[in-house]
Structures are given as structure tokens and as C-alpha cells.
């Protein structure tokens, strides 16, 4: 259907938005990446005009006008082809503004049941007219539970990815960080290493080392080496112990091409991992990372704002029933999210949209040293996400990733947010922590977790 355009009068000035993607972009709260792309509103008045016009738009319009043409983009085709009209029925007659009100008033079961009926653009649109408090309380209503060797996402839990990266993938360096994290209650989401290189032999060595640690300590969790999906496929062919297949993904065909992936490659990788039958309580074998700005970075954004494209990446993710999905919100840098304020809002938007679309959404609460942000900003975002029911966050020794050169949340941060908000680890993992005697002594390592058992002597 042809774009019809939208108009809105604000204080005697008429604002015209020629199509849906322009309306969405102009309605987006300010961030540097949209300004860089040339799609941001040029004034606060233009932004609120777009938000008012968007609020008046029927939700059903999203099924008639695509932000990127169906013929041109396999992600658009996926979104349209998978849309479930029955799940959409409860909100089909609402406007975007009415949808916000509905979400704020609805009970958790009703919000959760919507997911297959929502397109990413619908979730992104309503988020643009929400405040931070709205993003938090509606996300907190969504229930998403996934399983592999433990159960992630149960109400009242908050899981941690243990991220024991090392600049040269040194096995003992990685093992020391793994043990440190376990002793601080991290690792129930996954023990996941970002490898320093994509060398398949090196990746296989880390996979084998992580699997050995898991087996020696009998930990009810899963491991992952976050190499490119094609490297992981090669490792599986060669018999490596792969629990989860990782891949960075984006919200357009073009950005995925720039990452060297497509829907068909992801499907093939998932089938390979399923065939290994390594899960004990479930078969969710995929792990995805995303982040606002990747499409612009790859020059594959089609004039669509970065938050809407980010939400479209979640349509890619949900096609493959992932165990874990997280936005790496502050990693990409100040040209996309300039400061702590922009990172805070983006992290909560991403979590909200992911949850609305039915994903086990985590957030890498993080920043780089060239962004105008610091630990205070991360504490604020982490606390907000904890209240919003974030599925998991990262755990990095001392918040300092010595391989990727950025700051994420520390193991201590994970413990703190769990303690502050009364959250617990995944049940299987929590029982293991108790069994191992973890958390009783701040200086000594329990004998059952002796470093010598994993080659640290």
C-alpha cells in the first residue's frame, strides 16, 4: 500500500511526515545516532508533533505499511509472514496511544499473550511515546521462560552471564575468571567467552576448556564461545562440545549481510546444535546479541531510526527460539548513544521491546571510554532493569572487560541488584551454589571448587 503521510499541528505550525518510517524516526527521543543518520526531529516541537501523530495512528496500520519494503528485505518478509492475527485481536482496534494505555492497565497474562501478534514496529512505536517508568512497568508484566540445562526467566529470578574474557584466550586466565564469577554467584545464564580471534582451533580449545570446567564442578549451566556462527558450525563439524550457537544480528537484511549471516545460515546452525542433543531440561540452543546503531554502522538502515531497527532484530531472534538475547546497549559508542541519559533510555527501550516480542531479554549494561558515561549511569540503568524484570545481565570481573575494552556490570553488581530487589538465581543453579558452599566465606575458596581441579595450581 502506498504511503499516505501524516500531519500534525503544534502551536500554529503544521508538521508533515511523508511516510511511516519518517514518522517513527521523528517521534524518537533524541539520540546521536539518529542525528548522524539525518533522520532525527530537528526540534523538540517537531518531535512532539510526530509523537502526537503516532499516538493517533491505528495499530493496524503497521500491517499495511512496511518501513522497509517487503520485496527488498528478508527481515520484513519474516515479520509480515509470521504475524499472528489471533494474538493481535485484543488490540487490533486500538491506536498507538490507546495501546499504551491498554498495556499500562492490562494484567501480565494478557500482555504476555500478545507477543506473536505484535510486530517489532508496533513495540517500537509505543515505546516512543512512553516514559522510562512506563517501559519498566510494562516490561515487568511479560513472562518469558527458556531452558537448556537450567530454567531461565522464572518470576523473581535474575540470571547472570559469566563473561570471563581474556586478551589471548589463555585457558588458565579464562578459568580464573570463571571461578571468580562462580564464587560470586554468576553463571546461571551462560558461561560465555568472547574469543580474541575467530581461529577455529582456538575457539575449539576454549569450548573444550569450558566444558571441562562445567563437568568437573558439575554446574547446571551452559557454555558458549561467541565466535561467528560459521566458525561455530565448523567447530560442531569437528566434534567440539557446543551448547549454544551465538551470533550478532541486526534488523535489516543488509546489516545481517554485513555480519556475514542470513536467516538460512542461522536456521542451519540451529539444526546442527539441536542434533547434538546436549540440553537436559530444554532445547533452546541459540544466543543472540544486538544493539542500536549497527545498521547505520553498516550503512543498511534504509532511513529508519536505530531503535525501530533494533526492535526488528528481535523478530530475527524469535524465529529461532533463543535461550538468551541481549542488547549490548552502550558498546557501540557515542556516535549512536552519546551519554548516560541516552544509554539509559535505550537500554530500557530494548528490554521493553524484546520482552513485548516474547524474548528472554537481557541487557549488557555497558559503556565505552569514549562515551560520556560512568559507573553511576550504569548503576542507575542496572537498578531500573532489575525492577523491569530483566532476564539476565553480564558479569565481568570488576566490571572491566580486559579483552573487549569496555565496562560492563561486575559480578558484585549482579549480587547487589539481586540482594536489593530480592531476586534469585535460576533454581537449578541456586541449588548448586548452596551445595558447593558458595557465598559463605569472602576470602577462602570452598574445597569442592578447588582451583587445582580446573588446572589452576
Amino acid at each position, binding site marked *: 500500500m502506498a504511503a499516505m503521510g501524516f500531519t500534525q499541528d503544534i502551536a500554529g505550525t503544521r508538521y508533515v511526515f511523508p511516510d511511516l518510517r519518517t514518522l517513527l524516526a521523528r517521534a524518537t527521543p533524541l539520540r546521536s545516532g539518529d542525528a548522524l543518520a539525518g533522520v532525527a526531529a530537528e526540534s523538540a516541537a517537531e518531535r512532539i508533533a510526530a509523537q502526537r501523530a503516532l499516538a493517533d495512528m491505528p495499530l493496524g496500520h503497521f500491517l499495511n505499511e512496511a518501513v522497509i519494503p517487503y520485496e527488498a528485505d528478508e527481515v520484513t518478509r519474516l515479520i509480515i509472514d509470521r504475524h499472528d492475527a489471533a494474538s493481535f485481536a485484543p488490540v487490533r482496534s486500538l491506536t498507538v496511544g490507546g495501546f499504551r494505555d491498554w498495556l499500562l492497565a492490562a494484567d501480565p497474562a494478557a500482555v504476555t499473550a500478545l507477543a506473536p501478534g505484535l510486530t517489532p514496529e508496533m513495540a517500537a512505536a509505543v515505546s516512543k511515546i512512553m516514559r522510562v517508568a512506563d517501559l519498566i512497568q510494562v516490561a515487568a508484566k511479560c513472562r518469558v521462560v527458556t531452558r537448556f540445562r537450567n530454567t531461565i526467566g522464572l518470576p523473581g529470578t535474575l540470571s547472570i552471564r559469566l563473561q570471563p574474557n581474556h586478551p589471548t584466550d589463555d585457558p588458565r586466565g579464562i578459568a*580464573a575468571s570463571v571461578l571468580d564469577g562462580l564464587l560470586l554467584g554468576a553463571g546461571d545464564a551462560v558461561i560465555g567467552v568472547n574469543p580474541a580471534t575467530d*581461529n577455529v582451533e582456538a575457539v575449539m580449545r576454549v569450548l573444550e576448556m569450558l566444558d571441562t570446567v562445567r563437568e568437573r564442578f558439575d554446574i547446571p549451566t551452559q557454555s558458549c564461545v561467541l565466535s561467528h556462527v560459521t566458525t561455530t558450525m565448523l567447530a560442531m563439524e569437528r566434534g567440539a562440545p557446543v551448547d549454544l550457537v551465538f551470533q550478532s544480528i541486526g534488523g535489516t537484511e543488509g546489516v545481517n549481510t554485513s555480519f556475514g549471516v542470513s536467516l538460512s545460515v542461522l536456521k542451519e546452525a540451529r539444526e546442527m546444535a539441536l542434533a547434538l542433543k546436549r540440553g537436559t531440561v530444554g532445547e533452546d540452543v541459540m544466543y543472540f546479541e544486538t544493539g542500536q546503531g549497527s545498521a547505520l554502522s553498516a550503512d543498511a538502515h534504509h532511513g529508519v531510526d536505530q531503535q525501530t531497527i533494533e526492535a526488528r532484530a528481535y523478530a530475527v531472534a524469535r524465529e529461532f527460539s533463543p535461550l538468551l538475547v541481549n542488547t549490548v546497549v552502550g558498546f557501540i559508542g557515542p*556516535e549512536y548513544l552519546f551519554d548516560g541519559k541516552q544509554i539509559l533510555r535505550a537500554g530500557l527501550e530494548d528490554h521493553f521491546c524484546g520482552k513485548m516480542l516474547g524474548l528472554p531479554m537481557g541487557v549488557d549494561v555497558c559503556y565505552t571510554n569514549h562515551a560520556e558515561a560512568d559507573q553511576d549511569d550504569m548503576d542507575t540503568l542496572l537498578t531500573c532493569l532489575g525492577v523491569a524484570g530483566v532476564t539476565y545481565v553480564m558479569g565481568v570481573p570488576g566490571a572491566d572487560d580486559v579483552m573487549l575494552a569496555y565496562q560492563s556490570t561486575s559480578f558484585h553488581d549482579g549480587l*547487589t541488584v539481586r540482594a536489593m530487589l530480592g531476586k534469585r538465581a535460576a533454581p537449578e543453579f541456586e541449588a548448586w551454589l548452596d551445595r558447593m558452599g558458595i557465598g559463605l566465606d569472602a576470602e577462602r575458596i570452598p574445597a569442592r571448587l578447588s582451583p587445582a581441579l580446573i588446572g589452576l595450581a
Partner: protein
Amino acid sequence: MSTPSLWRDLRRFTDARVGLGRAGTAQPTLAHLDFQESHARARDAVWSSLDVAATEAAVAPLGLPVVRVRSAVPDRRAYLLRPDLGRRLAEGTVLPRAPGSVVFVVADGLCAIGVQRHAPAVLERLVPALDLPTGPIVIAEQARVALGDEIGEATGAAAVVMLIGERPGLSATDSLGVYITWAPRRGRTDAERNCISNVRPGGLSYDEAAAKTAWLLRAAQGLGATGVALKDEMPAGALPAP
């Protein structure tokens, strides 16, 4: 049952911030302030600038022509906000032709300190190890990785090896990244490059970085491409004698 080990002993195995102890669930004061100090130093590193004359002098013994260029970025703040300008050469830039050669770019990126310290040492090991003809060394200010595409296109290079300062971390404020792009030209995507990161003493050594770059260039020549099509399958321990 063995004697219980001390948690802080884990620090022997990694530079990561392990074994910090805890105050309640939080980090103790000393660990907290150590972190804040590191962040302060990293912030200053981001805003450091490349000493072009010193870098030129450091690579002079290699005997290759040296060219200085700037990107289209006017200053450091614009560099942070406008990566698109950091990927383009300043208007009026003239580069020598070096058809079929490997062209080297030494670029400040997000941390000039790292490039200054490590790029000459990597080049000293890499240049003699290559079978391909070698072109000029281009010293580039306010540069992003993709600036190498335009440099490669202008020089007619077979490949560009870009040595660029990586985003400073807390423990490492001087890491160098090496990006290898076969048949460089404007519009190449990151999936069409191979990258070696964390080059510094304490990370990937100069010898390893040079050997891996040389291996990737040989493999790229055979394949006619870099990027995801070129898997890094260099066997471990296959380092040639320096």
C-alpha cells in the same frame, strides 16, 4: 580434601579484576578507587593525539615512502560524533600510486598512544616477512578503519593493512588493532576484513601479530578475498623464526 585456597591467589592467572574481596555485596573501597583511577586514565587516552613526526621517524628505517594524511574530521569531538567523516580523506588529499602492493596505514583511531607505542614494532617484523610487493606507509590522523578503503582505492593497493588504536579499556589503554582488507575500495563492509586485536605487550605480542597478519595476507592472496570467507586457520605454534 586439599587445603582451602585463597581467593585472591586467582590474580596470578589473569590481569582481569578477580579476587577483589567484597564489602557486603559491593567492591571494597580500594578496588573501587582503583577502577575509578583506571577510568580516568582511559578517558585521557581517548583524547590523546598522534605525534606524527615521531611516528614517521620510528618507521623510517623500513625504507618505505611515508605519506601523511588526515580524514575529513575537523577535531576530536567531531571525530567521536561523526564516524562517517573519519572514513573519508580530507578534501584535496593526494596519494602516490602503488598498484598491486600491500599498503600500510598507521592511524590514531580511538587511542593515539597505542599506535605510537606499538605500530612501528609490528611493521618492523611484518614488512620483511611479506612475499608481496610493499607500498607506502600512510600515517593518518582522526581516522576510522574504513579510511583504509579509500586509501587502498587511491593507491591501487592489492591489500591494505591498517594498524589503528583500539578503544582504550581500563587495564589496557594502549591496544593496537590490525585490519586486513584485500582489494580495498570504498564501500567494503567489515565482513570483508580480517581483524587481529589486542596487540600489545601483555596481549598479542608483536611477533604473533606480524606472523598472523602475514599468514592472513598469504591466505587472502590465494583466495582473492578477506573477511568471513577467509577463516583464520593458522595452526598454533606455527610462528616462523623472527
